[in-house]
């Protein structure tokens, strides 16, 4: 800010000479105001739900489901945010990677000998194996797409919009491959297997699978935290996101960093897709449906900031579910979109983005 730059050390802090309008505008751009806006919106949604006739218990259950949905969105948007931060373009094919992950796991599950369901969950051990297999597979697909398409663009120094367009082409490419291999029908990991809800305190009814999804999301986010903060690769990733040229000068192999970013992003997207498939069903458009909430979480949290993406995803998930108490459930993406536009209006750098834009 201009005021602080001109101040010399030891000089008295000048009185705020800005006009009221400027001060108001600066206040609106603060993190606190943005958080306050979200809190007000969420409270308004609860009130609207109560007015529409939903019981307090139902709203509580919706909140719990919202946290779970937020976990799924977070898994997708962390990868999206990392790729956006390191490679500086919005990856429109991320939704297709989410779908691909779900379908790869769907293929792996029947290949394994079927075990008993791990009660209280609805899935057996083979599902967990499929999860572990699908994550690196999708990561490798993401790396392969990068090698074939995006690296060529990087080498020619193409503009951001060409990357965005190429990613749109790849989105439709992966989606049409999914249609070709698995067909347009709905699928379930375990068709017809019951997953009764658990009775939790305060009369909440939540399925065990949903708790698993939430816990897994937090475990994976914690793993991302460890990777980014404590490993050399994580440090290199953050450095590349900050300033790729400087990172190169300091001897960081940015191509390797980029490959690992795709690996990480693809793997997390796959996990998100598998969790989404477990909570509802698999369909080729599921990733496209999640694309808007994922982008909303990425922008709301601050581009390139995985923790911001996580917190924004949880807000979006809760808002999405609570809104169903007074709004047609298909308008879910619209709720995420409105929150995103509000963020862009109030504080374009997002919740955890740096204050200096």
């Amino acid at each position, binding site marked *: 800010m201009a005021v602080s730059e001109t101040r010399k050390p030891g000089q008295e802090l000048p009185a705020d000479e800005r006009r009221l309008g400027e001060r108001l505008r600066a206040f609106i751009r603060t993190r606190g105001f943005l958080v306050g806006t979200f809190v007000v919106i969420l409270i308004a949604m609860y009130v609207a739900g109560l007015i529409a006739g939903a019981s307090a218990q139902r709203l509580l259950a919706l909140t719990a489901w919202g946290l779970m949905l937020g976990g799924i969105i977070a898994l997708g948007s962390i990868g999206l945010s990392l790729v956006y931060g390191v490679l500086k373009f919005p990856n429109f094919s991320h939704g297709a990677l989410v779908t691909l992950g779900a379908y790869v796991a769907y293929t792996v599950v029947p290949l394994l000998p079927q075990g008993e369901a791990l009660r209280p969950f609805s899935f057996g051990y083979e599902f967990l194996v499929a999860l572990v297999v699908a994550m690196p597979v999708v990561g490798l697909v993401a790396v392969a797409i990068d090698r074939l398409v995006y690296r060529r663009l990087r080498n020619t120094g193409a503009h951001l*919009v060409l990357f965005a367009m190429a990613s749109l082409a790849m989105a439709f490419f992966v989606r049409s491959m999914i249609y070709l291999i698995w067909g347009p029908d709905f699928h379930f990991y375990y068709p017809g297997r019951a997953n009764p809800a658990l009775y939790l305190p305060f009369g909440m009814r939540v399925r065990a699978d949903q708790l698993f999804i939430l816990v897994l999301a937090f475990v994976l986010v914690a793993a991302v935290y460890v990777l980014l903060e404590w490993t050399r690769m994580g440090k290199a990733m953050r450095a590349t996101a900050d300033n790729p040229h400087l990172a190169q000068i300091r001897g960081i192999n940015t191509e390797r960093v980029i490959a690992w970013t795709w690996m990480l992003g693809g793997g997390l997207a796959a996990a998100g897709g598998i969790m989404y498939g477990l909570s509802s069903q698999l369909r080729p458009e599921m990733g496209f449906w999640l694309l808007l909430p994922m982008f909303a979480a990425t*922008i709301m949290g601050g581009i390139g900031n995985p923790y911001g993406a996580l917190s924004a995803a949880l807000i979006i998930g809760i808002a999405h579910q609570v809104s169903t108490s007074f709004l047609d459930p*298909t308008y879910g993406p619209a709720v995420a979109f409105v929150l995103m536009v509000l963020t862009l209006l109030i504080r374009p750098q997002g919740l955890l983005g740096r204050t200096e834009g």
Partner: protein
Amino acid sequence: MSQLIFLKGLMLGIALACILPILLPPGVRWRVPGGIVLGLAAGLGIAASVPSGYLSYFIGFMTMASLYAILSLGLNTQWGYTGHLNFGVAGFFAVGAFTSALFTIEAPTGLAAQYTQVLFGLQMPFLVGVLAAGVVSGLVAFVVAVPVLRLRLDFLAIATIGVAEIIRLIFQNERWLANGPQPLRGIPQPGRCLFESRHCEWLPESLAWLIEPLGTRDYTAFYLMIVAAFLALIYVVLERTCRSPWGRMLRAVRDEESSAAMNGKNVTFARVQAFVVGAVVMGIAGALYAHYTVAIDYSHFHALFGTFLVWIMLMLGGSGNHRGAILGAILVWGVWAGTAFLANALEPLLALIHEDLPGRAQYIRWLLVSLLLAAVVLFRPQGLLPEEMRVSNHLRGNGH
């Protein structure tokens, strides 16, 4: 040549006479009269020599190609001239289509009102519907543009994807607005009465014998004429405006934002203007589409058809070049139609790989066009007809 074939050839010829002069290279002398003569001759020739089944396929093909060419022109104003990444073309297309439908349709009464619900049905003439479609689509674009265009350009891409999705959701869910998930049927077609056995009231008796042999099946040729005329009109208008100082300002904003601002141009306002103009053109395309298919519903405005194909057309044809946009639309629509035959031809081969695959052959089309877009982005981002760097109309041949 019978009277029927002559009339069909004449309608096709007028349509081609609207499109061909645009496609001929601008350096050619006698471009406009030559194109018109060539178009008329080609129309009559095709009608006389081609069996009527193929002829109606060709007419349908050209109608859709011209509709897409209008969409592509609209996108060219936004992306080609101003650098807006609009990934929500389908949204403005849908707004235009439903607006024009509501303005021209007859509101159902009595028993029919239980099956078809509309917000209003004004029974206005076709041209009013098209005009309203452009205006409403432009208004929607304005509402979207004002908060988003102040920010980074990549946010616009995300925001427009969201807007298109929400517009589609609204037309899917809101029964009271335009009959919810069910199709909105019975959109009137302009000049349709000419082709029915009892001719239009305004047509003098003395002229009725001229169009006597035409039946309702021949209406498509007449509608192609209307769409082609709109295409030519929009092309001329956009070409004039983009060559005017306004077009130069847009390109300046796109390439050198700060120097445009330094020269006293309101950068944000220029961006909003270009976005709105493009959306108006897309809305008009939507209106023309609605009156072409007669029944529309939300599923017609899927991102695949509404947005993705248009982007491939513009990128292949050449962004920043109106002729390229139209050429790209016709070529890509040709590829798209051709891949349908290819998918059919591949079915026996696919059956050898897996028994389920032939039923999914249509998705091979998506695979091929997505590879086409990737190839264009990678190997020829400027398109087939690159943008012409023209500073002034009075400096001919000055390429810099």
